[in-house]
Structures are given as structure tokens and as C-alpha cells.
């Protein structure tokens, strides 16, 4: 696993360097375009400061911001023992140093994400809708996928790549606006030195092209990496659970769900297990998407017939995609291991719509610290945390129950 992480890290550093060069070029050209030749260094300086501020803010408050945007609440084991157990199981399987903290999002959409900059300080968040509709094997598949993101340091990487992208987008935006508004100030330079005028105009045009192309190119780079990491997390998830069908069947349910996540926005879309913004189930490979098409992810997982090691996933990927792009770093493919697929833990038991709704309601109430009280007549009384009285009258049998 360590070698895999290292290989990932090496690749990430290459991408950071590429993005960094684009950012520095932008800074330089914009500086020159606005302030003349000596402005280049100043432009680079501004670009680096912008990048530095964005990085610091996100490094020190990253998960907090994400968790508060997404409306997630931290929960204890009593709220959902099964979820806790599954996260603990996957923590053991992945040999993480510490169990991630667990959050539930009170939303009936089906989604999940992981965050946190290092494995010892990470978070897994799932929606109440997900908990109410997935069975144990499926939930395990989803959690394994999220834990894989944590193991592979994907969150740290994607956050920093996102910041780099953000800095580039802001720089270009500022430049383009400045160009339209402050066009006249640029003319001053033209008049001052008639010899430099042509060079200045050339720089101007180059900067304009750069300002338009740089964000697009960086975005494509970012999305391509993001999609690759989703595949890798699927592969690792299947390997951890020894049961690709769990994740496949969960993804299928996620793609069929018609609820949209209310709190989702563009900034954190890349973190979720499936894209919370797009209507899912699309067939065409979308270049500008953070996630691979869900139908392809399902097909790849389902055609892993022989085993669940990394090479099996890669083979299955090649077969479905018809290409041989490497998803898994070589050190993962070279592991001489043979892992069989395990059998399902419990038969798929589909709940009716009503049962699912009740389960969802119970989870939401649990998260909001409702107390559940069983009356002798069989009715479960659900008491909101604001109810302070000692006695509870059962609405069905009228029996007065004492609060314990």
C-alpha cells in the first residue's frame, strides 16, 4: 500500500509542478501586460501570494468549511451502530492508524464523502437517505470507497489541486476584467515608448490567450486526475471488501435515486462518491466532469469475475473501456496476490417505500437527538430533545410511561 501511495504522490507532484508553472506564467505575463517588463516579477509575486493565502485557509479549516457547507452532523455510535461498525471494519481492513470521525447529512439524497488532510485526522460523511436505502454489503462498499480516498491521500491532493485551479481561475478572471475596464491605461505604455509598442501588443495578445486557455486546460487536467482517482478508489474498495458487487449495487441505487442533494455546490462536488450536481446515469464520457460515468463504474466492478486484486480491476477496466490506460500504479499491479471474491453476507432485502421512509425518518430523528421509547402496547414513542416533562402518555393505549 505504501508503494501505491508513493507512486500517487510522485504523480501528484508532477501535476502540481505543471499547474504551478501555468500559475507563474500567468503572473508573469499579466505583470508584464499591465506594468511593462519590470512588472513580471511583481506579477509572479502576486500569483504566489494569492496561492499561499488560499492554501493556508483551506489547510487549516478545510474539513470544517466542507462539513458546515454540507450540513453534516457528527454522530456517536448509538445513532447508527451499523454505520459505525462498518467504518470500523474498513478501518481495520485498510490498516488506518485511527478510525475516521463519522458524520451524517440529514438529506434524503443518496451520497457520501470523505475529508481530512491526513489519515489520522479524517472524516466520513454519509446522507441519511443512503443509510435508509442501502443494505449492509452496499453500505460497506460505499464506505470502502471513501476509506480508499483517505488511504490514497486523495483528499489532500484534490484540495490542493483545487486551490491551484482556483488561483489560476481568479488570476485569469481579474486579468480579463482588468483588460476590459483598464484598456486605456495600457495605451499609455504604447505611447510612452513607440519601439516597445509592438512587443507590448504581442505580450498583450499572448496574455489574453493565456488568460482564456489556462483555466480551461487546468480544469481539464484537474478533472482527468479526479476521475482517475475515483476509479482507483473503486478498485481499492473492491479489494478491501473482497466483494465488488456491494459497491456496484450501491452505485446502481445511487444512480437511480431521483433526489438531489440540497447542500451540494460546485466547490465540494468532487469530494462526493457520485457527482451530486449532475443528473446521473449519463453514458457519454464527459470531459468536464469530476466523476467517471456511473454506468461504466458499475460495469467495470461487475465484470471482475476472477478476483478482486488490482490487476483484476485493471483488466476489467481495459475490457469495458476498450483502451489500456493505466489506472493503477505499477506497484499495485505487480503485487503477486490472488484474492477471491467473497460471497454475499445477507440476501438483498428490498424495503417497501413506506419502510424506507420510516427508516429515513428514524435516522434523521436519531441524528437530531430524539429519544425512542417503547410502550408496552408496541408503539414506539419518539420524543424530541426539547420535551422535558417526566411523563409520556402513549398516543395509542393512553398508558402513562415514566421517563427513565
Amino acid at each position, binding site marked *: 500500500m*505504501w508503494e501505491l501511495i508513493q507512486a500517487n504522490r510522485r504523480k501528484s507532484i508532477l501535476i502540481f509542478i505543471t499547474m504551478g508553472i501555468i500559475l507563474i506564467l500567468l503572473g508573469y505575463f499579466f505583470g508584464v501586460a499591465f506594468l511593462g517588463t519590470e512588472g513580471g516579477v511583481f506579477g509572479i509575486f502576486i500569483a504566489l501570494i494569492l496561492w499561499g493565502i488560499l492554501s493556508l485557509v483551506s489547510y487549516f479549516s478545510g474539513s470544517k468549511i466542507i462539513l458546515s457547507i454540507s450540513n453534516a452532523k457528527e454522530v456517536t455510535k448509538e445513532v447508527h*451502530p451499523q454505520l459505525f*461498525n462498518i467504518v470500523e471494519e*474498513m478501518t*481495520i481492513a485498510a*490498516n488506518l492508524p485511527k478510525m475516521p470521525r463519522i458524520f451524517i447529512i440529514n438529506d434524503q439524497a443518496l451520497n457520501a464523502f470523505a475529508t481530512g488532510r491526513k489519515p489520522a485526522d479524517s472524516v466520513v460523511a454519509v446522507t441519511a437517505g443512503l443509510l435508509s436505502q442501502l443494505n449492509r454489503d452496499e453500505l460497506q462498499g460505499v464506505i470502502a470507497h471513501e476509506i480508499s480516498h483517505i488511504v490514497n491521500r486523495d483528499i489532500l491532493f484534490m484540495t490542493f489541486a483545487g486551490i491551484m485551479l482556483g488561483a489560476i481561475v481568479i488570476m485569469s478572471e481579474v486579468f480579463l476584467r482588468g483588460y476590459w475596464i483598464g484598456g486605456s491605461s495600457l495605451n499609455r505604455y504604447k505611447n510612452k515608448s513607440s519601439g516597445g509598442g509592438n512587443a507590448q501588443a504581442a505580450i498583450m495578445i499572448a496574455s489574453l490567450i493565456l488568460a482564456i486557455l489556462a483555466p480551461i486546460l487546468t480544469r481539464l487536467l484537474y478533472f482527468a486526475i479526479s476521475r482517475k482517482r475515483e476509479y482507483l478508489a473503486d478498485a481499492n474498495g473492491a479489494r478491501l471488501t473482497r466483494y465488488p458487487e456491494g459497491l456496484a449495487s450501491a452505485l446502481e441505487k445511487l444512480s437511480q435515486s431521483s433526489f438531489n442533494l440540497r447542500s451540494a455546490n460546485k466547490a465540494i462536488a468532487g469530494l462526493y462518491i457520485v457527482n451530486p450536481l449532475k443528473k446521473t446515469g449519463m453514458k457519454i464520457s464527459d470531459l468536464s466532469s469530476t466523476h467517471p460515468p456511473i454506468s461504466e463504474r458499475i460495469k467495470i466492478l461487475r465484470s471482475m469475475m476472477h478476483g478482486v486484486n488490482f490487476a483484476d480491476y485493471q483488466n476489467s477496466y481495459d475490457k469495458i473501456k476498450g483502451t489500456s490506460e493505466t489506472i493503477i500504479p505499477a506497484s499495485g499491479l505487480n503485487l*503477486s496476490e490472488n484474492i477471491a471474491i467473497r460471497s454475499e453476507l*445477507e440476501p438483498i432485502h428490498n424495503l417497501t417505500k413506506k419502510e424506507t421512509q420510516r427508516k429515513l425518518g428514524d435516522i434523521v430523528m436519531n441524528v437530531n437527538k430524539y429519544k425512542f421509547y417503547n410502550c408496552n402496547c408496541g408503539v414506539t414513542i419518539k420524543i424530541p430533545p426539547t420535551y422535558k416533562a417526566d411523563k409520556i402518555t402513549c398516543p395509542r393505549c393512553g398508558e402513562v410511561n415514566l421517563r427513565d
Partner: protein
Amino acid sequence: MSAFLFFVIVIAAIAFYAVSIYNSLVRLRNQVKNAWSQIDVQLKRRHNLIPNLIETVKGYMTHERDTLENITKARSAAVDASSIADKSKAESQLSGALGKFNLVVENYPDLKANQNFLSLQEELTSTENKISFARQSYNDQVLFYNNKIEMFPSNLLAGMYSFIKEEFFEIEIEEEREVPKVKF
């Protein structure tokens, strides 16, 4: 002078590389140890769950005295076992007994409606899972460690500082290879 400097730099680079390999060997060996202790932790967890489980189901399963007694017996054998061979034998007997129990539970709808029992059952399922995941993780760590010991250039250092290959956790009994099926 510059030749000397070059020589020093090369030596320093080699030393630095060797240290990093040595450290990763140590880290991998510790991970193997850690993964092994994780199996023990989970087995203990299972031992602690069983008295609770028996207490809860005793009233319902009056006709299944044998099944319950088997579980209790297997548990105390597992708790008392000291050698690794004894331990693994006792633990697999315990797994077998619990597997039988899970089949019998099907016949007791009352029991399956009991909230207390359901949460115990979830704990039991999860503990079984955790045991098998802990074994799986142990084998993963052994694989990474053994690979590192065999591969060049880390094999040179492994030989010098006697890092020895670890054994995989193999399950001897054939039925044990299958994950115990838990039905609800």
C-alpha cells in the same frame, strides 16, 4: 579536491538511500506486528460479546440448549487456549458454533423482533467481519513486507540486518475459509 567532494556526495547519497530503505523495512515490520495484534483484539471482543448474547437468547431458545452450550464451551476453550495452534483451533470451533446458532435463530421470529437481540446480532456480525478483515489486513501487511525483503535493493539491507519473512495467516479448516453466513 573536486573528485574528493564528488566522492563524499556519492557516499552521502548512498547512505541516505540506505537509511530510507532501512526505515521503510522497520515500518513495514511494525505494521505486520500491529496487524497481528489487531486480530487478537477482535477475538477478545468476540469472547466478551458471547455471555451477553447467551443471556439475551436463553429465555427464547429453550429447545436449543445444545447449541448454546456448544458456544459457551467453545468460548471458554478459546479464552483458555495458550499456544497459537490451540488458539486457532478453538477459535475456528467457536466460529462454527456461532454459525450453527445463526441458522437456528431463523426458527425464532419472536427473538428476531427483540430490539436488544437485533443490536447484539449486528455486533456479532460486525465482530465476525472485523476478525476476517483483521486477518486480511495482516496478510496484506505480510505481503508488502515480504515483497520488500525480496526485492532489490532492499533485499541487501534486509539480509544484513536480518529482517525475516513473515508467515501468512492460513486457515487450516476448509469450512472456515468461507465467511460464516449470517441470516436475519
